[in-house]
């Protein structure tokens, strides 16, 4: 409602109904008020007064008490009974100057009392006063209505749900946001108690606020809803009290689901960031590793050339001297030691070259047991010399898989040599192969990094020795390039690093650990070829 209409309403001419059975009295009243800014109606009896009142809706009635058809009290009672006329202000007029009558009239809802014979000025003054009061009341009501409208508009447009409660905890007001959040309509809950609301925290908190007026906040509450999914909300309950008496409470409900979504999104974003950061770090490490390998490669080629030429000279020189020395047993022994030294030096340089070279694998279907057996042949002599026993349990049921047989042989040789060096003399080298569902015990860090998990069906090769095992502090560094536990001159420190490179190129994993009963154990895992790769050789349909 606009400001203007409020003002025009207050300016409307007041309508006054004059009621008396005696025409002379009516005339006096009429003359007292005539000429002023009033609209006047007249009735000469109770029945007529009611009729005019219903039809013309006066603002004020000057009502005589003593009337033959219906006395003023009855008229007043009926006016107040009918909602259409209940708002009309009543001033009684009577010759009676009786306190009991005045009280009776006021009890019936009259606003004032004027005794006969009246002084026209007094009547006019009282009427004017009451019209003024009426006008102010109307203005007040208008303002109230306007304030209510503004309030309703504010409450409707709020994102927070607002629920008003009376002193008994019954719902007196619900805004649309509250309807949405609670998943109910105002109709469902108005005038209802919230005692059976879910979760039980809600009625508990409400009861507490109503009993002991203090504000309570609940940061997060999960609200189950009748026909919708549960909602995370923030809850605030403030008591409405007057003169330290609780008149009710206001619930403020804030829907947290959107905030939760944003938070979750932020969380995801930060997780993604962290992941890409670690990927970046990994890539950086790989680049660094690659750069290192490249420089090692260049160095290795140079070293190889510089070392292998002298080695070739010594080798061929010793070969040439063989015939001349063959009758001298000591010289022959010395020559053999020298040949051995050449071969050792050659191994070192070869290791360097192997490490630096990332040759593409020559992958063909192979039985891994066959590669194991070929590799074993090469160390059988050394095993015998060192008095090391061999235990093999090679599963017959292993499927062929794509391997670079030479490279894998290098891997196994390396592991056999390490095992033999660890045991030195006496002991047992045991080799086991199987196609099996791996368990957690089979999975080392490399296996997990490769993406293998417990329950995967994998080709597993276990190579174990009965040596002293690996020192705990060395375990994590075994596969680092140039790390070696061997004495100076015995190893390049590249063996296991190259070994892991080769296994990784086969999409396999290799982890080393100590066995429960002493000694070290190497576990190699390979995913069997997909059946598809077998189909390549025998395509079913042509393309």
């Amino acid at each position, binding site marked *: 409602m606009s400001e203007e209409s409020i003002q025009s309403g207050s300016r409307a001419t007041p309508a006054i109904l004059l009621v008396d059975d005696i025409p002379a009295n009516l005339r006096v009243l009429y003359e007292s008020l005539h000429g002023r800014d009033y609209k006047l109606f007249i009735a000469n009896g109770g029945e007529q007064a009611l009729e005019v009142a219903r039809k013309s809706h006066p603002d004020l009635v000057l009502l005589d008490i003593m009337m033959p058809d219906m006395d003023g009290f009855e008229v007043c009672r009926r006016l107040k009974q009918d909602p259409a006329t209940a708002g009309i202000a009543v001033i009684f007029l009577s010759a009676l100057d009786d306190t009991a009558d005045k009280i009776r009239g006021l009890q019936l809802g009259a606003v004032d009392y004027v005794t006969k014979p009246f002084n026209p000025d007094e009547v006019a003054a009282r009427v004017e006063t009451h019209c003024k009061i009426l006008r102010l009341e109307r203005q007040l009501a208008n303002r109230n209505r306007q304030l209510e409208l503004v309030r309703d508009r504010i409450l409707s447009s709020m994102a927070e749900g607002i629920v008003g409660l009376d002193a008994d905890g019954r719902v007196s007001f619900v805004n649309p946001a509250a309807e949405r959040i609670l998943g109910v309509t105002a109709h469902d809950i108005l005038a209802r108690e919230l005692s059976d609301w879910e979760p039980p925290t809600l009625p508990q908190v409400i009861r507490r606020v109503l009993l002991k007026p203090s504000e309570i906040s609940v940061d997060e509450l999960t609200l189950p809803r009748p026909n919708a999914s549960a909602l995370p909300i923030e809850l605030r309950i403030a008591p409405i009290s007057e003169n330290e008496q609780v008149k009710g409470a206001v619930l403020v409900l804030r829907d947290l689901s959107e905030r939760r979504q944003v938070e979750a999104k932020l969380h995801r974003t930060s997780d993604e960031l962290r992941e890409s950061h670690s990927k970046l770090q990994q890539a950086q490490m790989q680049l660094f590793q690659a750069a290192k390998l490249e420089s090692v490669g260049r160095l290795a080629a140079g070293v190889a050339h510089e070392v*292998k030429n002298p080695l070739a*000279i*010594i*080798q*061929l020189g010793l070969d*040439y001297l*063989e015939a001349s020395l063959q009758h001298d047993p000591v010289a022959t022994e010395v020559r053999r030691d020298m040949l051995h030294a050449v071969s050792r030096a050659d191994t070192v340089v*070869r290791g360097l*070259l192997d490490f630096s070279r990332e040759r593409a694998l020559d992958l063909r279907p192979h039985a891994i047991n066959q590669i194991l057996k070929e590799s074993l042949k090469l160390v059988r002599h050394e095993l015998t010399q060192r008095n090391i026993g061999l235990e093999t349990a090679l599963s017959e049921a292993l499927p062929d898989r794509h391997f670079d047989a030479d490279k894998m042989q290098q891997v196994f040789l390396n592991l056999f040599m390490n095992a033999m060096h660890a045991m030195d003399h006496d002991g047992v080298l045991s080799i086991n192969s199987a196609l099996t569902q791996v368990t957690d015990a089979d999975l080392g860090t490399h296996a997990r990094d490769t993406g293998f998990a417990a329950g995967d069906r994998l080709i597993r090769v276990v190579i174990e020795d009965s040596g002293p095992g690996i020192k705990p502090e060395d375990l994590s560094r075994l596969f680092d390039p140039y790390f070696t536990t061997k004495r100076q001159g015995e190893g390049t420190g590249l063996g296991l690093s190259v070994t892991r490179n080769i296994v990784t190129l086969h999409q396999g994993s290799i982890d080393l650990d100590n066995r429960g009963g002493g000694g070290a154990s190497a576990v190699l895992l390979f995913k069997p070829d997909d059946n598809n790769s077998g189909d390549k050789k025998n395509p079913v349909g042509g393309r």
Partner: protein
Amino acid sequence: MATKKILLVDDEVALTRIMRLNLEQTGRFEVREENRGSNALRAAREFKPDLILLDVMMPDMGGDEIAEQLAEDPNLRTIKYIFLTAIVTKSEAGSGATEISGQTFLAKPVKRDELLAVVDDLIGD
């Protein structure tokens, strides 16, 4: 059994000498050493070897370049040759000679028996 002629081309003097001694020890070969890659072609024209052992990495002219020029010369293209190299590993070359891109390679340090086996394989009777 005719004596076969072998030309050794390697910048390492001690190496060509010990190779020559080993080959001559068999009494089946006539051997000439050449320690400058750039002289290899002239030596080949003069000596007319049945086989050339050719070092790949030499300071003035590499074995690969010499091989190319041998192939271009109608008088020399029938001469067989083997590369000697330090940077092919044994696991790549295996024991004895191996073929990489159609070329025969011997990995240094080569043993006498391996050397003789490869030589016999190529120019033996």
